[in-house]
């Protein structure tokens, strides 16, 4: 059977290989060094009543040192950004104060005041460069605070997102423009006018690098640099959208609006899953690597767990800071939530927030300079082109059916016949009830597998012949008696 259909056999082999690979990968999870877990309250105790002091008192010194406050009430409210490996922290006060630091060691990288309003700040692919959206233009600085570029094509930027695998810096501006800057070549990839007013709400989907924008009319639109119109536009709130966040898997989107609701959407079906009212509404949202959702409501940070399953009755954790919160981000690979607010910066311990096991080749919090340089080269080599940003990232693995069909049509036109068509057996119509469905089926069956049948017949004939021969030879042997040879 196998020899007859080598293609099928090969397909099956491939399939087996894939399955084996999957199993192997799953089995290797056992070898991961760290385990993740969540905070669990005693009986009758709600985890949201556990304060930071309680946690700090209990945990080891290194973990305890992760909770700290920076009192910076001069240039207030602060936007924050952690680098991709979670090692470096960038603080940007609205009144121009910018500081970068290694927050583990609290070592200051650079500190300056740009003497301008700062709207947003973002690390680029490594901790050697960061982008700052200032009052008018977009600026790039290096780790020491030296101004590298002032990009005047990007004006009035309000929010920024960095797409690490595409080396794209996506910005949205007060003039309703969504722009993409390729930071590896320094070229503007796309500038899309969204025609929906001031764009102050933005987030990226880490799964497919689609940019989500929130608008004042309660809609959220999804954008790719290669398409000039929103891929998807969904109405999420009755009032304007205030904040957005998409979780790591790209399956769930959290939105909060002026109607003081926090809704979780399933991005596969675009249907709302859960919705719950938050006091005052959430101004900033952020998903952690493990799927926790942090929401800033006024001066309170609330962290929710399993929001996509049920609407939580109470938060997982809570923290009150001194002033209204402006920036919020979970630190990658750490159980830490960074909070930028009017009074400075607070680092909050949130057990179970970060991914416990990091891939050293992907994002290494403990990388050396040399490793960083190596990684940079590799990442640049593996850079994904901006055209490949699609809603479904597996699209590249699919055949372009429309073009294929078109080509086939053209070929048929050129040749005058369809070379791929198989003439199917159509039984002749018979009268007197002999063309009943059953009968037609029978007749078709007679014809089906004709080739196979012929081969089988042949092989059977050969076998029979062999059997006969062997029988005959056996008979001959038996007839060879002593006097048999005299027989004529």
């Amino acid at each position, binding site marked *: 059977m*196998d*020899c007859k259909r080598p293609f099928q056999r090969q*397909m099956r*082999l491939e399939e087996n*290989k*894939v399955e*084996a*690979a*999957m199993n*192997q990968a799953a089995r*290797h999870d056992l070898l991961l060094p760290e385990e993740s877990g969540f905070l669990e309250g005693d009986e009758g105790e*709600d985890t*949201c009543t556990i304060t930071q002091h309680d946690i700090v008192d209990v945990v080891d010194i290194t973990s305890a040192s992760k909770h700290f406050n920076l009192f910076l009430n001069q240039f207030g409210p602060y936007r924050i950004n952690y680098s991709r490996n979670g090692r470096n922290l960038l603080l940007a006060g609205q009144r121009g104060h910018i500081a970068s630091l290694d927050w583990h060691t609290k070592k200051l990288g650079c500190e300056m005041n740009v003497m301008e309003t700062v709207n947003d700040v973002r690390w680029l692919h490594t901790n050697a460069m960061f982008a700052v959206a200032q009052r008018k233009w977009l600026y790039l600085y290096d780790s020491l605070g030296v101004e590298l570029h002032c990009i005047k094509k990007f004006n009035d930027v309000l929010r920024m997102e960095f797409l690490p695998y595409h080396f794209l810096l996506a910005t949205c501006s007060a003039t309703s423009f969504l722009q993409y800057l390729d930071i590896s070549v320094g070229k503007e990839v796309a500038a899309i006018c969204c025609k929906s007013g001031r764009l102050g709400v933005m987030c990226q989907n880490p799964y497919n690098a689609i940019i989500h924008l929130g608008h004042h*009319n309660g*809609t959220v639109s999804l954008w*790719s640099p*290669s*398409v000039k119109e929103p*891929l*998807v*536009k*969904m*109405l*999420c*709130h*009755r009032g304007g959208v205030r904040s957005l966040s998409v979780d790591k898997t790209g399956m769930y989107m959290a939105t909060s609006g*002026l*109607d003081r609701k926090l*809704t979780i959407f399933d991005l596969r*079906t*675009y*249907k*709302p*899953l859960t*919705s*719950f*009212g938050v*006091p*005052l509404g959430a101004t900033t949202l952020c998903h952690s690597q493990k799927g926790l959702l942090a929401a800033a*409501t*006024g001066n*309170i940070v609330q962290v929710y767990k399993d929001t996509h399953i049920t*609407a*939580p*009755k*109470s*938060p997982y954790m*809570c923290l*009150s800071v001194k002033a209204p919160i402006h920036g919020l981000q979970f630190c990658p690979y750490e159980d830490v939530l960074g909070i930028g607010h009017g009074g400075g910066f607070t680092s909050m311990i949130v057990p179970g927030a970060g991914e416990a096991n990091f891939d050293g*080749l992907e994002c290494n919090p403990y990388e050396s300079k040399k490793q960083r340089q190596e990684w940079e080269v590799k990442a640049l080599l593996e850079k994904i*082109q901006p*055209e490949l940003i*699609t809603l479904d990232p597996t*699209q590249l*693995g*699919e*055949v*372009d059916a429309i*073009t*294929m069909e078109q080509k086939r049509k053209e070929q048929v036109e050129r040749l005058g016949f369809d070379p791929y068509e198989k003439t199917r057996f159509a039984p002749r119509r018979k009268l007197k009830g002999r063309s009943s469905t059953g009968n037609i089926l029978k007749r078709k069956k007679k014809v089906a597998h004709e080739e196979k049948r012929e081969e089988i017949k042949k092989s059977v004939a050969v076998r029979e012949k062999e059997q006969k021969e062997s029988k005959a030879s056996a008979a001959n042997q038996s007839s060879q008696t002593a006097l048999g040879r005299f027989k004529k």
Partner: protein
Amino acid sequence: MEDEEELFVPEFALSASEDEQEDDDSEHKHQKLLEAISSLDGKKRRKLAERTEASLQVSEFGISAEGAGEKISLSDLIEPIKQTNNLSKVKKQLNKLKDQKSVELPLNNDETQKIQRAISYKNASEEVAKWDQVVKQNRKAEQLVFPLTDETLKPAPIEDKVAGWKPYTPLEMEIFNILHKNKQPITDPLLTPLEEESLKAMSLEEAMLRRADLKKARALQSYYEAKARREKKIKSKKYHKLLKKGKQKEAIKEFEELRKTNPEAALEELEKLDKARMEERMSLKHQNSGKWAKSKAIMAKYDHESRRAMQEQLQRNKELTKKIKVLSESEESEKEDETVPDFVNDAQVNSDGPNPWMTGKLRKDAKDSGSQEEEEKLEADVETKTEDQENDEEEEESEDEVLLKEFEDKRRLRKQEEKQQSNNGNKREATTDMAEDEKQLSQFNVLFQKLVEQNRKEEQQNKQKQAAEPEEPLEADSDEEVLRPAEDAPLLIESLERKQSLEAVDALGQEEEEIEDPVTQPKKKKSAKQTVQRTSEKQAKKSELIDHNDVLPVKAQKVRTPLLPTTMEEEEEEEEEEDDDDAAQKMIIQEAFAGDDVISDFLNEKNKAVEAGKPKDINLVLPGWGEWGGTDLTVSNKKRSRFIIRAPPAPPRKDQHLPNVIISEKRNVMAAAHQIHELPFPYNNRKHFESSIRAPVGKTWNTEKTVHKLTSPKVITKKGHIIEPITEDVFQKHAKAKKTDMDLNKPKHNKPKQDEKNSRKRQFRQR
């Protein structure tokens, strides 16, 4: 000259007879003489023989061609000898020759070569066919390592090693001594005397006996099976009834005995009974809902026996569903049972039988009670279920009194339970504030009871009305439902028509939130009759209309937090000063107001997008052609329908069922440029190809080992090795491999037997 003579002489001598020869001789001599003279002049001249008769063939030698076309047969040659007696030997030989056939002509060159080629081809193909298997195997192999005939190291048999080995150290000596004590054979066969003995333990006779026993047992089993099968096929109901009864009696007896002797086992039996009860409750097999029961119900009015049969069935249902009290159950579990509302069971009852009273009630209940989520759900369930039943069941208005009574009884029982539950629930409410769910449940129960009572009154009214009025076909569409006055007619009337689509049922839950009291909307009532008339039209349109509530359907629930933002605290303080209700109302109005035009804007936008995406009709109408021309003349419909080419309907949009989403149908051309649009060679199915490139190969996604496996080359050549052409040794290898395969495939229990056989053989050899 002489040659010629020699040639001629024998012919002449043979052809002429002897009698005439003397006359001819002189003539012949004369002729010869003449010829000799004529040849004297030096020139070689041949004179043709004179022809005496007409003939077609003329011999070049001047011979008359008498009988030239005929073949000379041997008999002709022999004939002259016949007279002579002395040549008998020759005669015999010649006679023999006459019998033998002549040797055939050898085939010409082409033919022989052709045959030779065919034969050699056959031989060659046979020779080559031998290699087929090998070639196939090599092609199939996932990986080939050249040189192919690489001998792998094999562990040498122990005997070889042992034979040439002698103990040196004292430890080794000791071990050897022990081995010798046990008479452990070092060489073949590796069996100790003990083992041999054990092998001898079962003699041949014994084995035969045992085999016979087994055979007998198997035969008996097959007989028994056949018998059982035959009995199973018996169609007589009476027989089966008797059989069942007998079994039941036996079971009861056994149970009684068990209770006396082994209480634990009895308990288990009881559990089994409980399970039967559960099954009955789940399936409601004996609820007079089956085909048989229905037919009986029709007959019940006139036939005592069928009535009795129905009662019996109901009795059986009661028996089966009755709870069996077991003392060991703790009180706690009982309490838990109570907290579970009984309406779950109610719904099940409804779902099974045609029970218009119950369903009607439930529906109204839900309506009156306002927007209780659970009730809505329940209602939706009931509706869908009853709707399903509508198709295959007709209304049974005149059901038997007996049946009615049964139902009444059941309901009463259930109500009592509910009362108890609600009381319990209320008590607990007072004591605990944590259990919100329970609270809800108890509330529900209280409501439910009230409604049940109300509805019983209504039910009676309805019955009277039903008897009086002919049934009107009522619209089950959600809009109409609202319009329908609550007092008249049951809410569900069963008929064969399908009145409600599933979507309408889904939408119902949301719409009923909005409308609190149907009685307060008298205006809509009037229009109800009109709408009833054109139901079909409306239903068709319904799918297109989008309710605003559908767009943002999720209901939000407030989160309790221990901490409140400072601004919020201030707000709350203010609120406390005012009336709480007013503040809440304000908030609600604010929230509602904020969203109103946002939704309609979005719907407009979506409509526009949908319209834009639709393919356009092609209008080829030319005014004035085939008609009167001029201004203000409309083109006739006939012409328009003829000359407008209708575009094919657009494929369904991805967002057609998502009112709050617009998904762009535009193709991403830039990404498509990177996609494959021609299938590579071995694939002719898109799906196959896609699945083949679906899985990643790289190190980022796979373990080291799998990457190695996935990327291993198909052919590996070892460096510094000579790759010899394949030889016939491979056949032996293949044969060996096949054999081992066969061995592996054989079931395992055969193996020891074989070993036994082998060892026995070895024993014989030893002897």
